[in-house]
């Protein structure tokens, strides 16, 4: 059980990353569980009286620079070098945190299907990831990409959110692209004719937002190894852009700071080869008392930088709120 960071996933599919600002955080860590404990679902948590953290989060790319990068990638889209690309921004502060307390408070307000928590000597990860990248049982495999985010307000419900997404051509196109890309990635390792869209464009509800989601299934080819699955599916396409390889190359030449865990995958591999992995988004990495929250949203031909910049903030907000 553990995680692959972004860099190691690039290495696996032979995509190079030029020299970036490094924090020396490990590229991936896996643990062998000694004891497995099932927790009661109705756990009650009484938050501690914590000291407010005064250190405000600093963002590494401001709106001006974000717009510049955005315009550059829009040109690349016009030339056909990429169809959709996700610019990553990072929020950082210096903070000594009690990770378990943070995680418990986060799950109380924002229980996500792929949430996880790691506490080790030098680092902790607190995550409310909503996105499942791989569920593999026997020869069945599925993935559940998210593409499309809508901020909640008092007038919106699930049905209205669905209507919004359906009518919004930009969100629809972005989502379509991801569905075809995930079908493709599954097709690399699945038997022809078995890759099927089980749920097409549905809405899921979270604390601050609605997501536009699809579910795609397949049956694995014989003799597919664990590493083949990892290489076909990771890094998860919905958080990178499309097509994957050329878009990764564009991203890696743009981003000056390493992504660390962000857009990597956390999960487990059983001894029988079954596995489950998420995509590491909506996560805090606290390493040597520096907290880092990364977010990204997509540049497609008809997106605009202000909206995407704000969408990034919406995505980070639930995590930043924990520090208040």
């Amino acid at each position, binding site marked *: 059980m553990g995680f692959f960071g972004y860099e190691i996933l690039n290495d696996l599919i032979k995509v190079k990353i030029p020299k970036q600002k490094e924090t020396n955080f490990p590229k991936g860590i896996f643990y062998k569980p000694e004891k497995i404990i099932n927790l009661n679902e109705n756990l009650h948590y009484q938050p501690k009286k914590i000291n407010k953290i005064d250190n405000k989060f600093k963002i590494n790319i401001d709106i001006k620079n974000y717009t510049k990068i955005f315009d550059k990638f829009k040109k690349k889209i*016009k*030339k056909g070098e990429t169809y959709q690309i996700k610019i990553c921004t990072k929020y950082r502060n210096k903070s000594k945190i009690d990770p378990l307390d943070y995680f418990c408070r986060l799950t109380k307000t924002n229980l996500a299907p792929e949430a996880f928590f790691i506490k080790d000597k030098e680092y902790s990860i607190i995550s409310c990831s909503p996105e499942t990248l791989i569920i593999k049982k026997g020869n069945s495999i599925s993935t559940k990409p998210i593409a499309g985010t809508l901020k909640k307000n008092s007038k919106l419900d699930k049905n209205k959110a669905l209507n919004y997404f359906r009518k919004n051509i930009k969100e629809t196109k972005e989502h*379509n*692209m991801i569905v075809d*890309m995930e*079908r493709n990635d599954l097709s*690399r390792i699945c038997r022809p004719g078995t890759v099927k869209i089980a749920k097409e464009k549905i809405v899921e509800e979270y604390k601050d937002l609605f997501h536009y989601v699809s579910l795609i299934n397949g049956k694995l080819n014989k003799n597919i190894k664990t590493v083949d699955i990892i290489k076909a599916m990771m890094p998860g396409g919905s958080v990178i852009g499309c097509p994957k*390889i050329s878009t990764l190359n564009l991203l890696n030449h743009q981003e000056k700071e390493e992504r660390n865990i962000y857009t990597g995958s956390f999960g487990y591999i059983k001894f029988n080869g079954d596995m489950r992995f998420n995509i590491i988004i909506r996560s805090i990495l606290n390493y040597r008392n520096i907290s880092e929250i990364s977010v990204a949203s997509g540049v497609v031909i008809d997106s605009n930088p202000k909206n995407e910049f704000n969408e990034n903030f919406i995505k980070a907000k639930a995590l930043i709120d924990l520090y208040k």
Partner: protein
Amino acid sequence: MIYVIDHKDSFTHNVVHQLSLFDHVECDDFSKVNKSKLNQADTIVFSPGPGSPKDYPLSSKIYKKYKRKKRIIGICLGFQQILFCEGADIVQQNKIYHGFQSEVLVNKSSKLFDAGTKFKVGRYHSLKLKEPFDVENFDITMRCAISGAAMSFENNIDKIYGFQFHPESFLTINGKLLIKKILSA
């Protein structure tokens, strides 16, 4: 055997799966094409991919070498690659279609599909064919119902076919049928 030449696209394996319904398919990266597979293949398929045809001189070379010797199919970038090799200009379009479902209309020059038929198809392209394009035996057989942009061509003499849209996309209704027709033409 169908040999798919992959231009590092995130849709190529959808193409491979669709073609696998009809024949044995092999697929390699455009930079690692295997000569004996090329020679064994009955059909060569140029996959979709990022960028423009001029970025893939190796694929152009293969096209020119195997034209008239094998059935050749191009999808999206592959469609443009073939036309580029035939002397066409491939240019940026004003409106860009990525993940877009639109209607294409079959015209009278098609020998495989009935004129007037409309298909709902998935599109992922920044570039398009610059027209007029007039090369012997190449007919533009489908066009975007709205913009009129070239969406497919047929060369039934040399058995060369291309789709600007993606027959393998889930956005294309009856994509299997489109592929079946050009494979059995």
